[in-house]
């Protein structure tokens, strides 16, 4: 039995300090995560933070929760496996634009359509920090950031549009230097029932000399401040199409960059719910990770019954 404790952000701080460049946007995401975990008072042994490879993907090492620092681009499937085997865990993926959208783009796409109840946080700096500054998939075409030999000849992908295409049922955008706001979005994302996606603009101070703090602060605004009637939540099946269209309208904005929650729909059944109804009514009560599989070395499944229709 765990004691009932009220945890503080500091309770989620790991003993070793972050190894990021001073001023890196990722610090803000880290702090927001500490705050969000504290606000939700989550048991750190029941959270699994999963990441790939990148400066951003080092984040789990600075957090006092269970974590899996996996390989480049595959954080989502690792997280998915953990969640499906034990749906009672709180699973959160963090990663960079390179990790989650270049090499890992396909998994992001296919997570959304499953609507597994977990959260993905994109720490977007439009460059590959850890490999020294190459163009990330969110870098607009024609920009020549510091370390690349020529201007970027490739176009950019809008992460929120991708999330919507994928089928994420919670879609939000934050800004790493606005820790309070980002905390709030992460709290909502974790609370959301279904696959949640949060893009956080998280500038790389070492390699992205164009999309800097100043650059962002000239462009960002908050959805609910610009339009106090903004309500991204689908309250009724019938609203789905309108809310999607409204979200799209904001998502494709390019000159100014809205922050906030763009879309939220808890009426879509989660994968876990669908799995329970289609495959196994006891799925959530007795998921794979919680099943005993033997008694004194003997299988718990009745083999002869299982194979009855194959016996001559």
């Amino acid at each position, binding site marked *: 039995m765990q*004691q009932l404790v009220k945890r503080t952000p500091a309770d989620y701080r790991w003993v*070793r300090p972050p190894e990021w460049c001073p001023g890196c946007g990722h610090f803000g995401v880290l702090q927001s995560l500490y705050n969000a975990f504290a606000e939700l008072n989550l048991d750190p042994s029941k959270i699994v933070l999963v990441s790939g490879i990148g400066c951003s993907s080092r984040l789990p090492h600075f957090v006092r929760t269970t974590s*899996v620092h996996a390989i480049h681009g*595959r954080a989502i499937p690792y997280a998915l*496996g953990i969640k499906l*085997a034990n749906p009672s865990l709180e699973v959160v993926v963090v990663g960079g634009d390179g990790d989650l959208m270049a090499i890992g783009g396909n998994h992001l796409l296919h997570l959304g359509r499953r609507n597994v109840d977990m959260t993905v946080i994109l720490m977007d700096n439009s460059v590959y920090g850890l490999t020294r500054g190459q163009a990330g998939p969110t870098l607009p075409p024609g920009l020549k950031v510091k370390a690349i030999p020529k201007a970027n000849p490739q176009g950019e992908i809008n992460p929120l549009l991708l999330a919507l295409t994928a089928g994420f049922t919670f879609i939000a955008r934050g800004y790493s230097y606005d820790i309070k706001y980002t905390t709030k979005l992460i709290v909502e994302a974790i609370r959301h029932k279904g696959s949640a996606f949060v893009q956080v603009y998280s500038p790389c101070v070492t390699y992205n000399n164009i999309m800097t703090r100043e650059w962002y602060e000239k462009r960002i605004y908050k959805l609910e401040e610009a339009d106090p009637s903004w309500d991204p939540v689908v309250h009724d099946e019938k609203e789905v199409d309108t809310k999607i269209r409204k979200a799209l309208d904001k998502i494709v904005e390019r000159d100014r960059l809205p922050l906030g929650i763009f879309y939220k729909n808890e009426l879509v059944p989660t994968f876990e719910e669908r799995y329970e109804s289609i495959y196994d009514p*006891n799925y959530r009560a007795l998921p794979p990770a919680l099943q005993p599989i033997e008694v004194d070395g003997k299988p718990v499944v*009745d083999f002869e019954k299982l194979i009855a229709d194959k016996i001559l």
Partner: protein
Amino acid sequence: MKINFLIGGPQGRGVETASFMFIYGVGSAGYYVFARREFWSNIAGGRHSYVVGSISESWPAPAPGNSVDLALTFDGHAVLEHVFHLRRGSYLVYNTEEDSKTPDSYTMMSKALAERLKNFAKEHGFEPTVKGYVEYLRQNGVEIIGLPYNKHITEIGRKIGVTSPVMLARFVNTFVVALGAALLGLSEEHVASGVGFALGKKAEVIEQNKKVASEAMKLVEKRVATLQQRNPQTKRVFWNGNEASAYGKIVGGVRFVTYYPITPATDDAMTFERLMPYPVSKNAGELSKFEKIGSVAFQAEDELAAIAIAMGGAIAGARSATATSGPGFSLMAEALSLAGMMEVGVVVTLWMRSGPSTGQATRQAQQDLLFSLFIGHGEYPKIVYASGDLEEVFFDNIKVANWAERYRVPVIHLVDKNLSNTFAVMPLPDISKVKITTVRPVVYPQTQEAEAYPLDEIVAPKLLPGISNAIFHLNSLEHDPEGDPEEDPVVVTKMFEKRMAKIRLIEGEIPPEEKVLYFGPKDAEKVIVGWGSTKPAILTALDELKDVGFLYVKMLYPFPSNIVREYLKGRKTLFIENNYMGQLALITRMFAGVEPTAVAIKFNGRPITTDDVVAAYRRFETGENVIKIESDL
């Protein structure tokens, strides 16, 4: 008694159903059947496919050779495909309505085969028509049962009140099977069992087909054999290799299977999926309160995800596996290296097929041994283990799941297309032999930090998220005991050695009899060495080849060098493999330092048969040391 049979016809038009009907019918009379399917890597289009097998009163049934006693053909194309698989005394059942057709008229026949057939007819001075080839066979002692199929079927249809051409066409399966059954002296009742089994649930369809069978059986009087009802005195199962694998997983406690569809692996995972939820045994302790339990069967977006999701399942605490074939396995290289580094026990059931690349996707090969041994960048411990028959496939699935959990390393379980498409009526495996060895997780009374990689234990205590009350870090980067990134030369050396120490641990703990088996006379001067699904053919050949031993290697990595060296010391060796390079021969030299005497290789996508083994051995005795096998049944 031993009868080899073949059922062949255009792919996607009921050959498979006919085979099931036939095999089940024979099985229901109390016999054992060992059969295998050959088919093209496309869905339909009329390419030729067939099932070849043997019927026996005892198990193991002998593995087929390069010719059959009885060939049941659907069309003239099938006759042409098997002209060289019949011999004096064989029986051929065929449709005389196709007599006038030529190789060229079968547009789905390989041009190369059509050429060969035409040349053959020319050389032997006969007309290149179905009839010409049949006559040639007859002259060479093959017993021919030629019937005008459609004429008979139409007549039978009239008798039972079916006239629609579409429906009549569907009777061909049953018609052909019934002819075969009659030739084998099988009773109508057993054919009826086969019909019931193969045609599923529709009562009316089954009744009609039973009548078709009954009428068709009257058309032949000859007898190849007389299969009388017998009592095998043991529970028997009719399944294939993919299914045996899935049942093994379920019994072995695997509760998490991921897959991305690929031939010939998909049916392993999909059987695991289809059987869900699984009935709970009476002696299941706390679980007994549930009537059924479930698992996770998950179709991933690709194999990169399939292996990662499976590893995620293992990290969370489920026995996890993924089933794939070569192309998918290639995509798992990076994750397997991670499994070694992060210390995650996961099973990859690798259904090998003929490569390289997409190759012959539905054909047999044992080409992925060396790749399995060294897959993934960097050095890390793993287990590579191969099964050779369906019983092994079943039991080995349990073993490899135990090992993955015990050693927390990736385990590559080598099986192949030949096993996947082996259909057998065989004794039900005796699961009283099964032993599932789980490792209990640590559970702390209160949430606390824990070391995922303590330096003082080769395999760390099992920490599970959410279950152990432990806060711990798993890491793909080289790390310290707490799992945090570390590049200190002293720590990284220890960590590397700790991981690699698993190899010795595995070598020490797994008993020799699970690594290699030896058959034949203890003091044989000559030894055949093989692995995987060539086992039944080699064992069957041993009956004929006196004085030869058979060293059968199941554990490929860590390679049982000492044991193999001991067995082979001072003997002449013939390695027999379904690949080009002689891969087992290579690793035997690499690890055991033993110089192979000769290698027999077959790489045309077809399995090695009993006749192949015998012929290869004869050539080996004459001093050949690279023996290429080219038979094609």
